């Protein structure tokens, strides 16, 4: 009895809404034709024209709409089908077949994708270098991945360390925050050679941000941020092989293995090896033009993805062993190390690192997410440069917790969190031991606003408590305004603070006879104070069409002004002096960049850069040495799609021109070792041809510095390396001359 009573009520309550519509209905069925057979079309819209009265067809293609004589036009529509508007004169059942629009000629849409993508929408001045861009110049490690990008300047490698240093906005890499997957990577002991410890094939894409950057990753970035996203086990090829050989007898090998282990876990093993065992001396100064080296680099990644729960996790393990040897041709490490028999240098590095990332995105509320990152590295470098020993052990721990959400709606996004870092340094420099611990705890808050129209803004604030830097605030602001179509006007301002690891960052200066002096003694870091700088910049991006083809121009102006800087003064040829800045030090950089798609498959990128970098040295205000005031860059890329669209030819040519560079003052040297005030100008040309045989296999052939431009005498006093005037740092151009290379890439999925 009670049961039926309850069921009656249920029926009543659920039936109530149906009673509201007791009137005439027009019914019908909508059909589509699939493979010649008529099938009901489910979910088609059926509504009276110019009204909001309608419904959708059910699983039998049937529908029922209220009928009234005044309404005569019934619209039936469904995505992928031609919309039909039926004249309905009386209440008779309808049977209508909808025609699929895919019966029309299909046109394949192949838009030309830019290899370096700029954002018109982001508040920060960020652009992404995609994998296609990285392949334009066969780069073996991350330091060589910026060849086709005018925003990053790549120095010429010096003969001893053989590594190319990068610069952004005129300032060297210690002022750039370089992260791998948003975990600070190239810092401390790995600052000098760290980019050569990341193989190019491990890099999926690179995000380059000019200006102060985000507060989320830390307080150290001053001039910009470079983030390298590494390849992921779920997206990378199951098997990848890259072989590279160069005319200098440099050989490189990369292999990747990726596999899915279970429905949530995937793993990848990435192996890299390189070797160069041939001694070259094209300028006949008795010194090798580039080091002999060996490197083994191994990475194992584990990826956990659980889309139902919204959890993604990465575990990375890496091991690196790198050895370099340079110096005079007849230097034998076994018999001549740390003697005056011959001058030589060895740099041996061993590095282990592990990192863990956990991300949780609320599946119901995707704008709410929580991320946790943790990384540990142990870096040991044992090296000597002639008679100078430099050993450094650096242990680093980094952890960061980030929470993302919105305030009221997705126009107002917030990121907040906290992080903890710990660094332990143990250095042995010539005869002195320097040991220290750095640790910091900090919190950050970043607000991002997007008015969905023409303005976005990111404002961030960090507060950190550091055992050596004290308590300090780091503010950062980025804004983007769109005045008219395809334009973006950006402005940014921000502050950065960092510890200058003077020895690790300036190791190449050890390869000289200069006496190393630290002139201050009151500070917390080698007696010196922390570096603090403000960075301001404006940037204007305008996209436009040139004869019906896509083009864009960018104008950037940035200024970095130091409140304090550790000045590296080598204006006296017998000394290197490190001291706290007393006065002004700034870097003004201006860049004009043009990207044009000239014709089908033909792209041009051209840029002009102007630098004005000056510092108050003890001897007075001078421009920074070995920095050209003007730089011109041009890259021409051509993709020839033959009959087989999957097997194109790709051609790339890159030209760089540097104006004269100021040498550090050599007026105190004896006449025969004095240099002019300025170096000559330098122009280099790189070319590369790639033939893609299939999506699985491609071969490339290229030349670096094909016009064989060479600096004739990069070393001062090479005949007397243990004398007082020896110096290998006056490098303004290429040392080795032209070099040709070839390689192949093989992929299996």
């Amino acid at each position, binding site marked *: 009895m009670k049961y039926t009573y309850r069921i009656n009520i249920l029926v009543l309550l659920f039936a109530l809404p149906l009673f509201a519509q007791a009137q005439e209905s027009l019914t019908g069925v909508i059909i589509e034709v699939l493979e010649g057979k008529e099938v009901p079309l489910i979910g088609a*819209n059926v509504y009276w024209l110019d009204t909001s009265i309608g419904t959708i067809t059910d699983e039998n293609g049937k529908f029922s709409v209220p009928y009234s004589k005044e309404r005569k036009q019934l619209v039936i529509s469904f995505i992928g089908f031609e919309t039909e508007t039926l004249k309905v004169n009386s209440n008779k059942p309808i049977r209508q077949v909808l025609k699929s629009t895919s019966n029309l000629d299909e046109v394949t849409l192949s838009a030309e994708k830019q290899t370096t993508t700029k954002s018109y929408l982001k508040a920060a001045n960020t652009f992404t270098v995609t994998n296609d861009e990285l392949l334009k110049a066969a780069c073996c490690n991350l330091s060589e991945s910026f060849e086709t990008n005018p925003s990053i300047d790549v120095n010429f490698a010096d003969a001893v360390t053989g590594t190319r240093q990068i610069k952004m906005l005129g300032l060297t890499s210690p002022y750039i925050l370089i992260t791998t997957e948003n975990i600070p990577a190239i810092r401390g002991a790995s600052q000098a050679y760290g980019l050569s410890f990341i193989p190019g094939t491990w890099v999926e894409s690179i995000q380059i941000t000019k200006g102060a950057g985000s507060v989320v990753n830390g307080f150290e970035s001053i001039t910009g941020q470079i983030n390298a996203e590494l390849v992921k086990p779920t997206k990378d090829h199951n098997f990848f092989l890259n072989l590279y050989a160069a005319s200098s007898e440099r050989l490189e090998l990369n292999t990747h293995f990726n596999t899915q282990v279970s429905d949530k876990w995937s793993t990848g093993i990435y192996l890299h090896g390189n070797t160069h065992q041939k001694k070259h001396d094209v300028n006949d100064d008795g010194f090798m033009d580039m080091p002999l080296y060996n490197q083994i680099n191994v990475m194992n990644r584990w990826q956990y993805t659980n889309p139902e729960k919204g959890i993604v996790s990465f575990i990375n393990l890496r091991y690196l062993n790198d050895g370099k040897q340079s110096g005079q041709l007849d230097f034998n490490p076994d018999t001549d190390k740390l003697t005056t028999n011959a001058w030589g240098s060895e740099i041996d590095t061993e590095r282990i690192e592990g990192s863990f990332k956990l991300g949780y995105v609320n599946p*119901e*509320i995707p704008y709410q997410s929580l991320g946790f990152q943790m990384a540990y590295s142990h870096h040991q470098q044992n090296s000597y440069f002639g008679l100078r020993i430099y050993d450094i052990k650096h242990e680093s721990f980094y952890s960061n917790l980030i929470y993302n959400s919105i305030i009221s709606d*997705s126009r107002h996004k917030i990121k907040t969190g906290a992080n903890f870092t710990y660094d332990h340094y143990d250095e042995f420099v010539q005869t002195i031991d320097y040991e220290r611990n750095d640790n910091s705890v900090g919190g950050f808050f970043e607000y991002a606003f997007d008015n969905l129209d023409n303005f976005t803004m990111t404002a961030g604030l960090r507060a950190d408590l550091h055992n050596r830097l004290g308590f300090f605030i780091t503010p950062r602001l980025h804004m983007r305004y769109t005045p008219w179509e395809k334009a973006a006007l950006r402005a940014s301002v921000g502050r950065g603070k960092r510890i200058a690891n003077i020895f690790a960052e300036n190791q190449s200066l050890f390869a000289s006879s200069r006496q190393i002096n630290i002139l201050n003694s009151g500070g917390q870091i080698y007696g010196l104070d922390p570096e603090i700088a403000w960075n301001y910049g404006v940037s204007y991006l305008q996209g436009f069409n040139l004869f019906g083809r896509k083009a864009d121009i960018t104008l950037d102006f940035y200024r970095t002004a130091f409140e304090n800087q550790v000045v590296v003064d080598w204006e006296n040829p017998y000394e290197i002096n490190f001291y706290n800045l007393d006065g002004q030090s700034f870097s003004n950089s201006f860049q004009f960049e043009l990207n044009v798609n000239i014709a089908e498959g033909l792209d041009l990128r051209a840029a002009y850069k102007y630098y004005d970098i000056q510092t108050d040295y003890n001897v007075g205000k001078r421009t920074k040495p070995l920095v050209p005031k003007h730089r011109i860059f041009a890259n021409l890329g051509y993709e020839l799609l033959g009959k087989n669209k999957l097997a194109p030819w790709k051609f790339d040519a890159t030209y760089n021109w540097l104006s004269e560079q100021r040498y550090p003052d050599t007026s105190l040297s004896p006449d025969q070792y004095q240099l002019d005030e300025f170096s000559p100008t330098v122009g280099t040309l790189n070319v590369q041809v790639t033939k893609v045989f299939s999506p699985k296999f491609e071969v490339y052939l290229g030349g670096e510095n094909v016009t064989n431009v060479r600096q004739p005498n990069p070393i001062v006093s090479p005949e007397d390396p243990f004398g007082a005037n020896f110096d290998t740092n006056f490098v303004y151009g290429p040392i080795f001359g032209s070099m040709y290379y070839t390689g192949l890439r093989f992929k299996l999925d």
Partner: protein
Amino acid sequence: MKQIITILALCMLNFSFAQDKNARATLEVDGVCGMCKERIEKAAIKTKGVKSAVWSIDTHELDLIYDARKTNTDSISKNVAAVGHDTKFILATEEAYLSVDACCRYRDDQVVKDHESGDVK
């Protein structure tokens, strides 16, 4: 007494959904290009109570997250229709539809074809 409780309990069933602070809904909204996407999402987000609105050009689906105590799919549909985009049950008036740019006239089959063939972005 038991019957009253039963009736009340059944009524509660309906009300419990309306308290969701992060209600999810998918509306079908007609449009044809990137500009339509911006217009649709902006109109939806400006509706008080809507937290997130993402419209897909391919599926014509507007994924919404909204505070069900402050708004509902009808109000959101109304605001989207008011800027000129048809939703399933609330269509845009002729005036609103004509206020969209010519390249966005999604009711016109020719415009839809132009977008599919890639002639227009």
